[in-house]
């Protein structure tokens, strides 16, 4: 990187207006502004409240199954070893082992505890791959709250297993037919529901996107990933990781891993976007790689848009990365040079999917497979034996039908 990283302090992320540098903010209809203020106030009130924290920590341990292990991927490490035995030491932060099979539950649980304290009885959420929808349906079942999940028709088809799981747990899954019927459209519809029912409803947004305070709240509930990682690294080798690697759609699993280390300049942070059929084609979802600054779903951030400022429908084999925007803090980390962002194609992601399955007996989500696949590019560039922590953000059971179509294993 040729950019000199700006001094980054936690006070800037975000500032009092919810901005990360020039990114973030609250670009929403007036109707929602009081609700965003109410949510922000509730978050600040309960974030440091011992009773709230005790309830959250207890559920994270006994219900979610935290802490998630930091697993040394021995055969993956051997695969990338040089003839002299040196090479990247690869560790997986096993968020796939969480209850419901992904990192999404960390945030859903935190937000449902907030909603309960704010007296909201009705919960709505958007979902792409279905993991956030499943996590939200799960916590709503656990606390007996009405749950409505907005999901694009196209995603309902490619993630039908998750649709069944949500319905089984009592959630109503509403299909969204607008646009291409994917995550962007589901998010717009969830926001319209919230505008209409804001007085009774809490919107559990699933990524570090959307208007302030969501990027901050979601990040802080996901930050446990990085906090545990720091502790586990200390236990295993008495130091910090050298490289953090995570996939980025909206960016919540990456932000959850990165946040703890943003002010540790020795830790290199790499986010991997969905390159679809290639970032030079029209079919990709690589927002930070190919987007321009714009406003979507309440935040200023990088955005895939056409020359007229219309939002472009993104594409990825992975429903969870198929989003034309990205969390504002990622845009800030990119522009400041603190984090690096690259993309891998569908084809490369499928290779990563197979590789982790065969070498480690771990079937990763297609989203996660993007991060795995980047090892192929990254490892040959590295010298010595740096320790890489990959956020293994979700399990791949939900993706086997999609993958089977491409891999011809059936």
């Amino acid at each position, binding site marked *: 990187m040729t950019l000199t990283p700006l001094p980054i302090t936690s006070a800037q992320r975000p500032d009092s207006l919810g901005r990360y540098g020039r990114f973030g903010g609250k670009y929403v209809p007036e109707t929602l502004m009081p609700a965003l203020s109410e949510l922000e106030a509730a978050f600040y009130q309960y974030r440091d409240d011992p009773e709230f924290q005790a309830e959250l920590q207890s559920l994270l341990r006994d219900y979610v199954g935290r802490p998630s292990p930091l697993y040394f991927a021995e055969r993956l490490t051997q695969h990338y070893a040089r003839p002299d035995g040196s090479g990247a030491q690869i560790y997986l932060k096993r968020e796939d082992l969480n209850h419901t099979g992904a990192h999404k539950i960390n945030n859903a649980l935190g937000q449902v505890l907030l909603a309960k304290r704010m007296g909201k009885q009705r919960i709505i959420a958007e979902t792409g791959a279905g993991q956030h929808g499943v996590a939200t349906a799960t916590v709503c079942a656990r606390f007996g709250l009405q749950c409505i999940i907005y999901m694009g028709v196209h995603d309902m088809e490619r993630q039908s297993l998750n649709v069944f799981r949500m319905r089984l747990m009592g959630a109503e899954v509403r299909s969204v037919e607008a646009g291409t019927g994917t995550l962007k459209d589901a998010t717009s519809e969830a926001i319209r529901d919230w505008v209409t029912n804001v007085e009774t409803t809490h919107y559990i947004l699933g990524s570090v996107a959307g208007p302030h305070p969501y990027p901050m709240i979601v990040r802080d509930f996901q930050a446990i990933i990085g906090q545990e990682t720091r502790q586990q690294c200390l236990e295993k080798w008495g130091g910090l990781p050298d490289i953090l690697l995570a996939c980025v759609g909206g960016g919540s699993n990456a932000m959850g891993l990165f946040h703890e280390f943003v002010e540790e300049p020795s830790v290199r942070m790499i986010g991997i976007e969905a390159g679809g059929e290639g970032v030079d084609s029209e079919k990709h979802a690589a927002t930070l790689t190919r987007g321009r600054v714009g406003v979507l779903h309440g935040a200023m951030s990088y955005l895939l848009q056409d020359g007229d*400022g219309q939002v472009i429908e993104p594409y990825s084999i992975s429903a969870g990365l198929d989003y034309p925007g990205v969390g504002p803090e990622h845009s800030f980390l990119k522009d400041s040079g603190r984090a690096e962002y690259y993309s891998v194609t569908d084809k490369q992601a499928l290779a990563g999917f197979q590789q982790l399955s065969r070498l480690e007996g771990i079937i990763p989500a297609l989203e996660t497979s993007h991060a795995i696949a980047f090892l192929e590019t990254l490892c040959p560039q590295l010298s010595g034996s740096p320790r890489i922590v990959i956020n293994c953000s979700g399990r791949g059971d939900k993706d086997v039908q999609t993958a089977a179509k491409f891999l011809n294993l059936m």
Partner: protein
Amino acid sequence: MKSLRDRGQCALIPFITAGDPDLETTAKALQILDRNGADLIELGVPYSDPLADGPVIQAAATRALAKGTSLDDVLSMLQRVSPTIKAPIILFTYYNPILNRGIETFLQDIYTAGARGLVVPDLPLEEVEALLQPARSIGIEVTLLVAPTTPKERIAAIATQAEGFIYLVSVTGVTGMRTEVETRVQDLLMELRSVTDKPIGVGFGISQPSQARQVMEWGADAVIVGSAFVKRLAEGEPHQGLEAIESFCRGLKAAIAE
């Protein structure tokens, strides 16, 4: 609008989506509305992700975009037709197309095309500053919105910054036709009136002459009707749509004329 209020009259502000069914029809519709009682006209710029809009206007925007309607197309149509109509034109657009063109260029371009006002539904008070100053110097009035959920202190702050008129959103929700206007609109109007003498337009959810009259009687300076126009204009052949909005516009105007 101020002169109408001075005469004790309530203004009618119809809304249509540019490019649905096509820009030629939009141009004719603007002229028809102008001749049939519209005091101002809101022209919606079609956008891919209209968060504040209900199904009718969303669908109209999607159709307009599918036909390839660009901002340049909308503005050149407006530039052609605006000299032929009396009613001031207010553009209704989401923020991203403004940002994409560059705030100053956007404002200059819409002014040249003949627009005199701007409503940006996803730009609340906290974010509007970047737009307000350049708009003032170019001569575009930026209308701000007040919602049923807006707290009292905030209403006063918005009223101070708003130009042209204050847009009172009459429902907690998105645009679209409702069978009744919420009675709390009356309280909101009184609350707004107590902090400002700027004109107040009420919109979102008003679709019938009787509702328009109700809102006028509660003290609104203007009534904004959107989805009910957009729906009529989109039904049948373009000439049928134009006939439908002509009689609808007259009916609304009659209902709010003293």
